[in-house]
């Protein structure tokens, strides 16, 4: 058996489902966005759905709002995750086990994390109660309007809480392979803690940070669960629009739902490509120095 055939055969358990289910699924989404293969025969032009979307300022508002929520929460999660992971890594061995509490939100489903945010940060939530107890606020109307301000703060909080342990996990994996002697040497040579973190540790963590950011960013951009609980009425996350179009309206609007999905898909792919290109360029620049 020739080399190629052997390899293709061995790759087939992955490649075939990939082609049929993933590529096929995306292909069907694209088809339906053009009005082909929809449950109901589509009347009108193939690009109607796109034309309608692109003419709708509310769509752009949602798109950029989703982007913003995703970017801010992913960034926050990566930053807090990295700092916490570094601190936890420095804990003495006996304490390290206790620090495993950080894995709790990893197990909680997104909707439950949203629920936790609701319990804590709604104007009548725990935080408000504590503020009242401390005398900071008098009635619950004094509590700042965090969850439904139109800025997506609730979703950002939830995604950050869920994403932080995830980036901690990625960073820890790298840290455990990190040679402590590098830090010991740097300390002997007189470097400060901050300087060590930024010049020695952080560059080594870069791959985990990039991976973490991409995954969290794209997940938050396209996921449904947390917005379902915490999304504001407007501008609203894209996934909620898709959900409403898909489930709550009649089948005639199926191409619109699919068109949003196609745009989300294209954005995700372009983002991955652009991000990895930029990172590659940046890192090769660093190496040249």
């Amino acid at each position: 058996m020739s080399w190629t055939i052997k390899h293709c055969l061995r790759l087939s358990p992955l490649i075939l489902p990939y082609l049929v289910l993933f590529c096929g699924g995306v292909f069907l989404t694209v088809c339906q966005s053009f009005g082909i293969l929809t449950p109901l025969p589509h009347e009108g032009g193939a690009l109607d759905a796109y034309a309608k979307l692109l003419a709708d300022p509310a769509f752009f508002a949602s798109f950029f709002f989703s982007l913003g929520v995703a970017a801010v929460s992913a960034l926050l999660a990566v930053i807090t995750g990295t700092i916490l992971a570094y601190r936890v890594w420095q804990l003495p061995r006996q304490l390290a086990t206790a620090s495993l509490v950080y894995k709790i939100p990893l197990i909680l489903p997104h909707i439950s994390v949203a629920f936790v945010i609701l319990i804590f940060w709604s104007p009548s939530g725990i935080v408000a109660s504590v503020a009242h107890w401390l005398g900071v606020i008098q009635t619950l109307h004094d509590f700042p309007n965090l969850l439904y301000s139109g800025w997506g703060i609730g979703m950002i909080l939830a995604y950050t809480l869920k994403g932080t342990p995830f980036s901690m996990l990625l960073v820890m994996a790298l840290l455990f392979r990190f040679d402590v002697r590098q830090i010991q040497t740097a300390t002997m040579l007189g470097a400060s803690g901050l300087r060590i973190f930024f010049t020695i540790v952080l560059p080594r963590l870069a791959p985990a940070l990039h991976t973490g950011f991409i995954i969290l960013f794209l997940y938050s951009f396209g996921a449904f669960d947390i917005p379902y609980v915490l999304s504001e009425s407007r501008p609203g996350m894209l996934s909620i629009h898709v959900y409403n179009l898909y489930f709550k309206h009649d089948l005639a609007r199926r191409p619109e739902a699919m068109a949003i999905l196609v745009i989300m898909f294209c954005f995700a792919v372009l983002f991955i490509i652009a991000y990895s290109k930029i990172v590659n360029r940046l890192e090769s620049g660093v190496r040249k120095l």
Partner: protein
Amino acid sequence: MKHAATFLVLILLFALPVVVLALVSLAPGWRFPDVWPADFSIKGLIYLAQHQRQILMSLGSSCLFSLLTVLTTLLMCLLPAAVFARSNFSGKALLEGLLLAPALVPPMTFAMGLHFLFIKFSLADTLAGVVLILAMFSYPYMFRSLVAGFQTMGKDYRLCAENLGAGTMSILLQVELPLLMPAVIAGGSVVFLVAFSEYFLVFLIGGGSVDSFTGTLFPLLNSSNRSLAAILTLIFLCLPIVLFLVIDTILVQAYRKKGMI
């Protein structure tokens, strides 16, 4: 104490929510401005007892399709991961990037397109359909983990076993799989969690026929009955922890006995 601050943040961020959930679960009427619940009730627990069959069924169903998803991803990724870890071919990096894509692009984008097809081929509303769709966007975690596992293992064990006359399958099962176990567990845990906590895709493809714990939890999280939502969330939290602890203990014991860790 330098580590106190770290601990405080960890506790506030990650442990306090669980404590509060526990309180909420016993205090349905806990409201502003009480810092501590005014009164407690076990109504939630009674509901739980009344519905234990249904809750256990949905928990079992969730466990079942999550484990099947883990198994499916393992079957999908085992041979391909070996190829990726051990041979070089042109376009490998590109192919790897493409294969990781399903974990990154929003799963809705292909699941919704597939839904119609699944209905046509009677895969919608079946366990198989749910497992397939879950496997399809969670396999990259298994794949990456296995590739790393194969790379750590190197080629020598396979060469040696081949040299001693073993066949491909028996090498895979007898020699490589035990060595890959940590990678399988690592990748499998992520796949399990992703599948276990997924609501939307199970709902879309399972169409209510495939019971899921998130499906039971979701309407309640949205309802005003917070204590029940909190109880179910706590149960949700416990199951994977128990499962991981059991697996971890068994695995650690086995590996410690063999002196592999």
